[in-house]
C-alpha cells in the first residue's frame, strides 16, 4: 500500500467509524439504562432516513430534514417505549420478540410508503465537494470529514452530559444500579422514557447523516442493526468509550480488508467479534458480569 492510499483508507475507516458510532451510541444508551436490546433500532435509523429525505425534498433544506428526523424518531421511540415496552419491562425474551415484531411491521410499512427506490441525499454545499489534503496531495470528500467531526462533537457532548450534569449522574447511577436509583426517589420511568427517546432520536439523526454518506433504501435497517450489534458487542454493552473504540476498530478492520483482500472482507469483521468474545466476553470496555 502506498502512503496516499494508506492515508485514504485510514480516513475511510475513521469516517465509517464515525457513522457506526452515531448509530450504535443510541443502541448502547438504551441498553445501558433500560437493559432493553432494541432490535428495532435499525428500523428507527431507516425511518429517520426516509423521513429526513422527504422533509429535505419538500423544504429544500437538508438541515431541516436532519432536525425533523431527530425529533420525529425520538417521538416514535417514546411511543414504542410507553406503548409497548413499558408493559413488559424486564422480560427479556418478550422485549426482544416485540422489538423484532415492530421491525418487521415497520419494514413493510416503510416499503409501502417509500417503495423500494434508493434515496440519495443532497447535503448543503458547504459540507460537500472535495478537499485537498496538503503534503500528500490527495483529494478527500469533505462530507465524510464532516461526519467524523460531527461524531467527535456528539461523543464529547454525550461525555460531558454523562460526566458533568445531574442528568448524567442519574443515568450513570441507573446503569450501575437501577433499583437503588429508584429507591432514592428518582422517577425511573421518566428517565427510561427520556433515554429511549434520546437513543431513538440519535438513530433517526444517523439515518440522515449516514444516508448522506451512502444512501437510504429498503434493507438498510437490518444492516445498521447488525453494525450496531457488532460495535456494542465488541465495545461492551452500555459503555460510551467502548462504543467509540469499537466503532473505530470495526470500521478500520472493514476498510483495510476491503482495500487489501476485498473477497474476504466480510469474514474479517466477524472474526474480530469472535476474537473479542473469546478473550473478553463482556466486550473491551464492558465490566465483567
Amino acid at each position, binding site marked *: 500500500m502506498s502512503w496516499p492510499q494508506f492515508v*485514504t*483508507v485510514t480516513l475511510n475507516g475513521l469516517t*465509517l467509524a464515525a457513522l457506526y458510532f452515531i448509530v450504535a451510541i443510541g443502541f448502547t444508551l438504551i*441498553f445501558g439504562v433500560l*437493559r432493553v*436490546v432494541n432490535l428495532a433500532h435499525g428500523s428507527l435509523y431507516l425511518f429517520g432516513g426516509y423521513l429526513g*429525505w422527504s422533509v429535505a*425534498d419538500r423544504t429544500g433544506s437538508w438541515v431541516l430534514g436532519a432536525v425533523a428526523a431527530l425529533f420525529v424518531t425520538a417521538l416514535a421511540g417514546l411511543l414504542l417505549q410507553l406503548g409497548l415496552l413499558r408493559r413488559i419491562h424486564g422480560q*427479556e*425474551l418478550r422485549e426482544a420478540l416485540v422489538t*423484532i415484531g415492530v*421491525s*418487521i411491521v415497520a*419494514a*413493510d410499512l416503510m*416499503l*409501502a410508503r417509500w*417503495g*423500494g*427506490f*434508493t*434515496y*440519495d*441525499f*443532497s447535503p448543503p454545499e458547504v459540507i460537500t465537494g*472535495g478537499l485537498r489534503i496538503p503534503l500528500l496531495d490527495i*483529494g478527500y*470528500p469533505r462530507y*465524510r470529514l464532516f461526519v467524523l467531526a460531527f461524531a467527535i462533537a456528539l461523543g464529547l457532548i454525550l461525555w460531558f452530559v454523562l460526566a458533568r450534569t445531574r442528568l448524567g449522574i442519574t443515568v450513570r447511577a441507573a446503569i450501575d444500579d437501577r*433499583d437503588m436509583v429508584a429507591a432514592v426517589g428518582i422517577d425511573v420511568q421518566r428517565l427510561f422514557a427520556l433515554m429511549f427517546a434520546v437513543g431513538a432520536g440519535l438513530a433517526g439523526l444517523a439515518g440522515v447523516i449516514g444516508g448522506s*454518506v451512502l*444512501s437510504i*433504501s*429498503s*434493507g*438498510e*435497517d*437490518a*444492516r445498521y*442493526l*447488525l453494525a450496531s*450489534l*457488532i460495535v456494542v*458487542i465488541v465495545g461492551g*454493552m452500555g459503555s460510551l468509550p467502548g462504543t467509540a473504540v469499537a466503532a473505530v476498530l470495526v470500521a478500520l478492520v*472493514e*476498510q*483495510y480488508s*476491503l*482495500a487489501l483482500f*476485498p*473477497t474476504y*472482507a*466480510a469474514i474479517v469483521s*466477524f472474526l474480530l*467479534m469472535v476474537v473479542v*468474545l473469546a478473550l473478553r*466476553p*463482556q466486550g473491551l470496555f464492558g465490566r465483567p*458480569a
Partner: protein
Amino acid sequence: MNRQELRLSRRALLRRAGLFGLAASASALLGACAGQQATPTPAPPAASPTPAAAASPTAPPATPAAAASPTVTVGPAAGEIVIGILATLEGAFALYGEEAVRGVELAVAEFGGAIAGKKIRLVKESTDATPQVAREKARKLIEQDKVDCIVGPLSGDEGLALRDYAKTIPDKTIVNGTSAAQDTTLRDPAPNFFRFSTDGVQWMAGLGTYCYQVKGYRRVATLGEDYSYPYSQVAGFLLEFCRLGGECVAQFWVPIGTKDYSSVITSMPSDIDAIYVILGGSDAVNFLKAYAEFGGKAALIGGSSTIDQNVLETKGPLRERVIGIPGAGPVAADNPDPAWKSWVEAYRKQFPQGLSTPSLFCWGYYVNAKGLLLGLQAVNGDLSDGQKKLQAALAKVEFDGPTGHIKLDKNRQAIANNFVTEVAEGPNGTLYNKLVKVVEGVNQTLGLPEDKYLSLGSFTRDNPTCEKIKQTFGS
C-alpha cells in the same frame, strides 16, 4: 451482604442471558447477510397464504386473477391453474421484486387471466435472494400452496438452487424469473426448468466490442459482487473484450451487501481506461456516489443491473454521475420496435405507479410467464400425466416478445436479442438506457464453438482470465 451477593448473581445471569440472546440474533442476522443482501428480519412466517401480496403495493385491479384478496383456497380448485411467483419482495431488492410481479401480471392480463377456460390464480412468495430461502419458499409453494408451476427466481444463486430443486419435483414445472447465472441451464440442467430469458453472459453481448472499437478502451479493471451472476456478467464482457485484444489488469470481488466502496475505489490501479462495474440496486448507487466523490478518473462501464431502470430512478442527485455510461442488457428503453412500444404502453396503463419504462426484471418475468402461458395454451391447460405434455410443449414454444423473437435451445435456454445501451437524459428529465446497437439472436455461447466454450469451465471469481480467453479462442 447476603442480599448484595444475590443481586450480583442475578445481574450476572441477566447479563449472560442478554449476551447470549444477542449472539443468537446476531448470528441469525449474519446468516441473512452473508448469503445476500440483508433482509429486514428473519423470513416472514408462512402462516398467511399470500404474505407477499401485502408487501407489494402494486396489486393492480386490472387482473382479476392477481387480485390480492386473501383467498384461503389451497391447491387448484376445479377449473383453475395455480402459478407461484417467487421474487424478492423485501429488503434491498424489494423494487426488483415489485417489477417482477408486474411482469407476470402483465402476461396473465394479456391472456385474459385464463387458459382454455381455466382461471389463472397467482400465489406470491418472497425470498431474500439467498439460495437457501429460495429453495425453502419454492418448497412451500409446491407443498403447502400446491401450485402447478413456479415463475422465478430473481437472483443468480437462487436460480442454481431451484435448478437442483426442480430435479426433485419432476412432475412440476419451473420457469425462470430473471435469475441469470449461466450454469443454471448450461451445465447439468434440469429437464423441468425452462428459461425464456437470456442469462448474464448473453446480456453482455455486444458490449465488449463496443467498448473496444467505439469507446477505444484497451485496459480495464472489473468490480463485482462475489456470486454467480456477476461471474457470468464479467465473463460475458471479457469474452468479447479480450478476444479483440483488450487487457483486464485487475479484478475486485466484494462481499454481497458491501455498502462503502471508498477503499475499493482507492485501491483501483490508475493506469486503466475504464472500470467495468456489476453491482445491484442501492449498492450500485453507493458505488457511483463514492466514485464521483473520490474523483475517480477512469470511465465506467455498466453491467446489466448496474444501470438498470431501477437504479436510474434513484431519488436524488444521481444523474450527473451516470449519463453516458455504456452498458448492455436484454432491454433498451427507447427501442423503436413497435412491439416494444406497445408493451411499454400496456405496462404504463396497467401500472401508473410503475417506473417510467419497465426494467429488465419486469421483462424477464414477463417473457418467462408468457412462455409458460403459451405452453399451457398449447396443451389446453392439461396438467395431467405429471405435466409431461406441458413440458414437451414448453420446449417447443417460440414467440415474438417485446424485444424480438425468443426460442429455446436444447438446454431449454432462451436464444434472444440483446441491446448495447448508453445512459441518457430524456426530454422530461428522466434517465433511460438509450439504444446504441442491437445484437440479434444471441445464444448461450455468444456464437462461439460450444466445445471450446465449455472447455473454459464454470465461471468463477478467477475464471476466465483474459489470457485464457485469448488462448482458447485466439485473439
